[in-house]
């Protein structure tokens, strides 16, 4: 798997990994330089000023503010370059581009369950196209795990009760390690898998070749019916006794307490498992909690469904499995899986 010519560096296969490597080489250079400098001076002194007779006493040497200032300021300046460089890349790592393909990841002792927006499910394996931005929306059913792809130089904890994100743009097709990096119990070291980066065309074939499953949005819509959400929020999310859901994702929502909250993944999730936490203005606390009744995966499906309700004019297509959400044509936030068909 070693593709790089530099020894002891894992394969570098994303747009970010080369940037991280550059910083790493800089840090390594500084470390090696200072280690050699200090041990060199140390060894030199130890030999030059070794005790020659058992009775000698050297003259005391006066301290020096100049020197102290010098060797405080120089390391500080160097440290600040490292800080700024590291922070700048980190910011890029944290902020996913708007047009990224979304993939849902649910961690569970001890496996990774992955589902593409088109419905393909994978376990401990993630297929992604090279050259396209991919955003993982991740959570866990039990303990904290950590999604770690060394070749992309990224990792992020998946935290129960929350959604965390990772994004990357793979550059080189190939098969790379996927590890769980946060200790999660007995079979922690078995919670591994691979990330398969494919050429975009191959990836599209792969997607359609496996397209026998229901998309998360469609599955979410079924749940939406069976759980009875439909009776208050309306068949197309147009609202009723409960607030309207269509078009809500990514917008600000006014709450009863006068505040506004962004309807992101976390808010939608909270509103399902703990509906009273942030009530939409104008609605009473009548919704029952779904805590314990829907699994994390089902929550992801509901989330995908609500996200798909972006156009208010057209009700989503219900029954046909494997169909991309029909609503997404012309959507302002393009859902890439459908635009590509």
């Amino acid at each position: 798997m070693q593709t790089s010519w530099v020894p002891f560096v894992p394969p570098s296969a994303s747009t970010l990994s080369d940037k991280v490597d550059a910083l790493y080489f800089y840090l390594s250079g500084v470390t090696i330089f200072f280690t050699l400098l200090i041990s060199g001076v140390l060894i030199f002194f130890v030999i030059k000023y070794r005790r020659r007779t058992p009775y000698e006493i050297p003259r005391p040497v006066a301290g020096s503010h100049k020197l102290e200032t010098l060797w405080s300021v120089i390391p500080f300046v160097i440290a600040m370059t490292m800080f700024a460089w590291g922070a700048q890349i980190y910011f890029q790592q944290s902020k996913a581009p708007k047009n990224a393909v979304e993939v849902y990841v649910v961690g569970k002792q001890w496996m990774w369950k992955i589902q593409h927006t088109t419905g393909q499910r994978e376990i401990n394996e993630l297929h992604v196209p090279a050259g396209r931005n991919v955003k993982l929306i991740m959570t866990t059913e039990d303990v904290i795990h950590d999604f770690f792809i060394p070749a992309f130089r990224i990792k992020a904890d998946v935290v129960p009760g929350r959604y965390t994100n990772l994004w990357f743009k793979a550059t080189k097709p190939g098969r790379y390690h996927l590890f769980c990096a946060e200790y999660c119990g007995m079979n922690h070291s078995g919670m591994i898998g691979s990330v398969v980066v494919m050429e975009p065309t191959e990836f599209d074939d792969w997607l359609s070749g496996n397209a026998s499953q229901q998309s998360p949005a469609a599955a979410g819509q079924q749940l939406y019916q069976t759980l009875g959400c439909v009776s208050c929020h309306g068949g197309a999310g147009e609202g009723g006794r409960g607030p309207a859901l269509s078009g809500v994702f990514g917008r600000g929502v006014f709450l009863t307490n006068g505040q506004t909250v962004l309807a992101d993944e976390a808010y939608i999730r909270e509103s399902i498992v703990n509906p009273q936490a942030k009530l939409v203005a104008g609605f009473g606390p009548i919704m029952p909690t779904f805590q314990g009744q829907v699994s994390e995966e089902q929550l992801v499906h509901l989330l995908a469904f609500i996200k798909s309700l972006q156009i208010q004019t057209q009700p989503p297509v219900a029954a046909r499995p494997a169909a991309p959400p029909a609503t997404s044509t012309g959507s302002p936030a393009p859902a890439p899986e459908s635009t590509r068909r």
Partner: protein
Amino acid sequence: MAETVEHLGVGHEASHPALQHHFENMEQQREAGNIGMWVFLVTEIMFFGGMFLAYTLYRSKFPMAFASASNHLSLPMGAVNTVVLILSSFTMALAVYSAQIGKRRNQVVCLILTIVLGLTFLGIKAVEYHEKYVDHLIPGQLIPGHPFKPDKVHLLGDAAKENVEMFYWIYFAMTGMHAVHMIIGVGLLSVILFFAARGRYDPEYHSPVEISGLYWHFVDIVWIFLFPLLYLLGRHFEH
């Protein structure tokens, strides 16, 4: 130069019987005890600090749930307990004062009053805890087979039941820890009372009374914060 001199300050022969062998004089011994207690109180502040942090975080996250749960606590009992505890701090201060000026009788009386007030506080606390037990407001399985049921709590606005339970856990954790400190304090003061009654403390040596007093006042201060935070914030939502 390795000069040495004989004992500085008061020689051991002429010193107070309560002077420990490794101290040079009473002043040093008193200072050490005093600083020691203050340093200990720093650790206590940090100890409660962790819980205050959790309280602050979750109160800001679930204000209505916390208000609803808080309103179900008994304000009269909380307020009376505040008065009792401040009164006990006052008698404690007087006990130290009596030791300083060497009035043994007053000192003993004040110590007894302090202990009685401390026990009163704990008694009222026990009544409160029992009320919560009867109302099924003991969170989780702290009492096995007696699950939490917040039916008696009037839920305000968008309060969620889980978060009401969390308030009660924080309430029991904080007041429970406070009560443990009270019990330790009462034990400490009982020992002090025993020695005070035997006339051990005089104007020159009363460091144990003083530092027990510091501890007692600290426990009082914790309550001064707990009372408004747990009992009062959120009352106004009822109107």
